[in-house]
């Protein structure tokens, strides 16, 4: 088997910047959880970009990073990072899980991705109304292709995590029924607990618990009928775990933590970007896969995600725009098909990625507001880690030295404004370091290895 440079470095037992976890007691102590309401946002950037168009030089922003130049002083670039054990588009399943995926036919990782690791940690320690939120912007070239291929990209729990690709549905699901400043319902959905009077909310909670118990008992009876049918038993066991999780039991076991209602600052005020799409998209998921709506969908999903994270409805969110092997039309000039262009003129592809960066800037701007959950004056962005990471580079789709940047300080746990040279380092070290910064116990991140990128820690 061919050994690439990164493998070679690892084989020598040397990591240019990573240091063994065991030798990091001081660092570990300094990165212990703080009171800051931390958030994590993962932003996969598909197909990468030519290095000189991405990495900021001495003169400031690069072509791609210029749209969010105002935030570069709060952005840390990690250069030299590779996706370990994988390459090409199939690295999408490796980049946030740390699992080796050596080709397209390799089975799914079977471990949790970073977002789910952190979400599970929050669920067990400081749960939010939504454990995590996963949005897509045309995450496959068609709804049917998402159904067939798209759901196994990036995020695992440890089975593939579904995305919501319809921003109208996403908005209604997250904010529908929440009160608005003028107390006008924002969407035609069932009344939700937070807007109900306390006695009504308590009755609803009791009824919900009773219904759950009823369904759980039925599931047990059905499982008894299916005994001996291995696949059906497995199916029902997964269903039972899901019901238990709905009841508040952490998926990894342990004490249950009740799911809180959305914070009071979360409201159902309509988002103009979502409402502009409502006539076309409400009740029609296929319509959310039309290329001509790419920009409008993107803006709407960014706005939905930003509100959910900012108000504390969730503390973990991901957004995938396009698909690694897809050809959604990037709306610059006359429009360029994403993946095909990654194999073509790199100046043009760089401008495509710059367009994506304008959406990244849209997100950062919305996070750059006083944190409503944190009275000490820090912004949401201060308390967030927004990770931009590519699975590979254009043209040859090598996964060495992929674009990687982090914005925000995760509540002071991560360095800001650093330029880190991490030649030969693995994405697993990055994942380990971020999880560590969020206070996730080492025992829950063993699948990320035992090496940290210490320069990333504040």
């Amino acid at each position: 088997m061919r050994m690439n440079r990164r493998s070679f470095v690892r084989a020598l037992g040397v990591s240019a910047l990573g240091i063994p976890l065991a030798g990091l007691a001081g660092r570990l102590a300094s990165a212990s959880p703080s009171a800051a309401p931390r958030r994590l946002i993962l932003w996969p950037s598909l197909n990468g970009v030519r290095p000189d168009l991405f990495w900021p030089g001495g003169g400031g922003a690069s072509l791609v990073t210029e749209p969010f130049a105002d935030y570069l002083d709060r952005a840390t670039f990690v250069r030299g990072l590779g996706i370990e054990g994988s390459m090409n588009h199939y690295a999408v399943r490796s980049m946030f899980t740390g699992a080796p995926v050596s080709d397209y036919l390799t089975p799914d990782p079977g471990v949790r991705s970073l977002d789910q690791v952190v979400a599970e940690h929050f669920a067990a320690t400081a749960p939010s109304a939504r454990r995590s939120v996963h949005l897509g912007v045309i995450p496959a070239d068609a709804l049917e292709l998402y159904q067939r291929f798209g759901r196994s990209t990036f995020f695992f729990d440890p089975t593939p995590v579904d995305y919501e690709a319809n921003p109208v549905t996403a908005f209604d699901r997250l904010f529908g029924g929440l009160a608005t400043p003028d107390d006008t319902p924002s969407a035609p959905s069932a009344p939700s607990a937070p807007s109900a009077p306390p006695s009504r909310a308590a009755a609803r909670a009791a009824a919900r618990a009773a219904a759950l118990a009823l369904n759980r008992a039925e599931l047990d009876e059905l499982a008894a009928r299916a005994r001996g049918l291995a696949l059906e038993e497995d199916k029902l066991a997964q269903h039972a775990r899901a019901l238990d999780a709905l009841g508040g039991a952490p998926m990894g076991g342990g004490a249950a933590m009740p799911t809180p209602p959305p914070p009071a600052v979360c409201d159902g005020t309509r988002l103009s970007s979502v409402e502009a799409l409502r006539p076309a998209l409400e009740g029609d998921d296929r319509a959310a896969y039309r290329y001509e709506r790419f920009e409008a969908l993107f803006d709407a999903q960014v706005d939905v995600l930003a509100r959910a994270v900012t108000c504390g409805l969730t503390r973990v969110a991901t957004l995938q725009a396009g698909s690694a092997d897809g050809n959604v039309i990037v709306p610059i000039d006359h429009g360029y098909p994403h993946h095909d262009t990654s194999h073509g003129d790199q100046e043009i592809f760089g401008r495509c990625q710059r367009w994506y960066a304008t959406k990244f800037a849209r997100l950062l701007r919305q996070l750059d507001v006083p944190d409503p959950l944190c009275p000490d004056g820090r912004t949401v962005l201060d308390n967030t880690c927004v990770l931009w990471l590519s699975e590979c580079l254009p043209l040859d789709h090598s996964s060495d030295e992929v674009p990687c940047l982090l914005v925000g300080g995760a509540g002071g746990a991560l360095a800001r404004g650093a330029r880190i040279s991490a030649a030969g380092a693995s994405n697993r070290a990055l994942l380990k370091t971020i999880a560590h910064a969020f206070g996730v116990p080492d025992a829950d991140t063993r699948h990320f290895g035992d090496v940290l990128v210490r320069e990333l820690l504040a």
Partner: protein
Amino acid sequence: MRGASIVLALLLAGCVGRLEDLTPRRPAPRVPDGETRPRVCAPGARDVAGPRLLRRLTREELEASVRAVFDLDRDAWRGPRLAPDPASGDGYTNHADRLRVNEAYALQLREVGEEVGAIVAARAGCAETSCAEAFVARVGRRAYRRPLTDAERARYRELVAVAGDAAIEAVVAAMIQSPHFLYRSELGAPDGREARLDGYELATALAYTFTGAPPDDALLERAPSLTDRDTRARVARELALDDAGRPRPAFAAEVLRFARGWLGLASLDNLGKRPDRFPAWTPEVREALGREVDAFLTRVLLEERGTVAELLSSRTTTLDPVLAAYYGWGAPGLAERPEGWGAGVLALGGVLAVRATNAATSPTQRGHFVRTHVLCDPIEPPPPDLPPIPEPTDARTTRERYERLHAEDEFCQGCHRLMDPIGFGFERLDADGRLRALDNGFSIDDSGAIESLDEGGPARPFVGADELAALLAADPAAARCVGSFGATYAYGLSRADAECLASGALDAVEERPLVELFLELALTRHFERRAL
């Protein structure tokens, strides 16, 4: 065998080299099958009793079920907000092993249940305990598709007591989240050396197979009689066809779902063509091509109750003004395709355009579809680490390019000999779905052959898409293959297994309308019996 579409993706990623003016090499998605179930049928087995199953409702089935059970039209309820169902390697979204309940789905289902609960409760107009218990008695049988057991009724009584004035809402939410609502039980009960589905399970299977919805009260009343084969045959026909023998709308919708899944035209919605090569290609044309496919399937399969042979060879199509102008022949309405424009569903403009790049035809994609979806021949995927192949510099036409790339490479030729020579037959039909006289300014050779799977075996030569359509229409293997996709959709298992489970029904598919095959599927051994 891996899913056919995966094979196609691998093929595209494999041997076809890259030209700047053609769609570059596309990566192959991961195998998505999730079909860990061992093969049900031993080689050569026929009419086997398949596995005992729990089939989670698809999103469409769930919506239809909620509407039917709680009597909600679109004005009353907008429909479920659920994640799209995953598809199997065969392309259908109702595979029994792919439809699962994870935490995200359970959460979404709870939201659906509570939303519907609020709507139904507001309409019920009563909240007292006696009212809620009567509601359970009335609606429970529809929701569970069988009478509730004493234990189940007792649980609902407890729920009603806890929920108080929110009892109706809670009951509805619980019913929608109930595994007895959510799963179609095909477990049956032991009966000798096999399991036999009871009347209610059979009523459920009949209703979802032929209407995509749960059994109504009348069908539930007849449930005990459905173990009788003749009764089942009669009920299947009543569900599918009206008194005049015409397909009922719900059954027609199911047949179209099967046919669309078989054709796999998902990418048509966003399909683009290079404007410098295909300036007439517009979003309006693309949408018209999609409508043409639907109209063709509806007419041939449902209105004319055609056979697979007619599906593959009908020269009649339905044009609207956009397509009549685009094609340059015929008038809006039914029209005969002129000589050279091919015949049957495979030569429809939308089908041809999807199986092409944005700039050129793709004999491999077109041939691959015929192999895997019309002949059901296995095509092994190439190794995933195939390097790019140097682009030939002396190829003047698409055919020459593929011959240089594949036919002259022994490794590639091992598989491509089974596909490309079939695809060459469509070469007069361009990537935009229209007839062309020349390719890159050169004359077109559209001779081809259906090569034998056994290397050196007899080939079936043909010239052009018309002759290919005639060859396929006369091939019993094609009728059986297309029919087996129908069984796949109906039974929610892999195509290879479905073909075996429905082998008796498929024996007659060559001579009979395809819709009759669906009716036969209710009479197979698998439909009422399962292996223990």
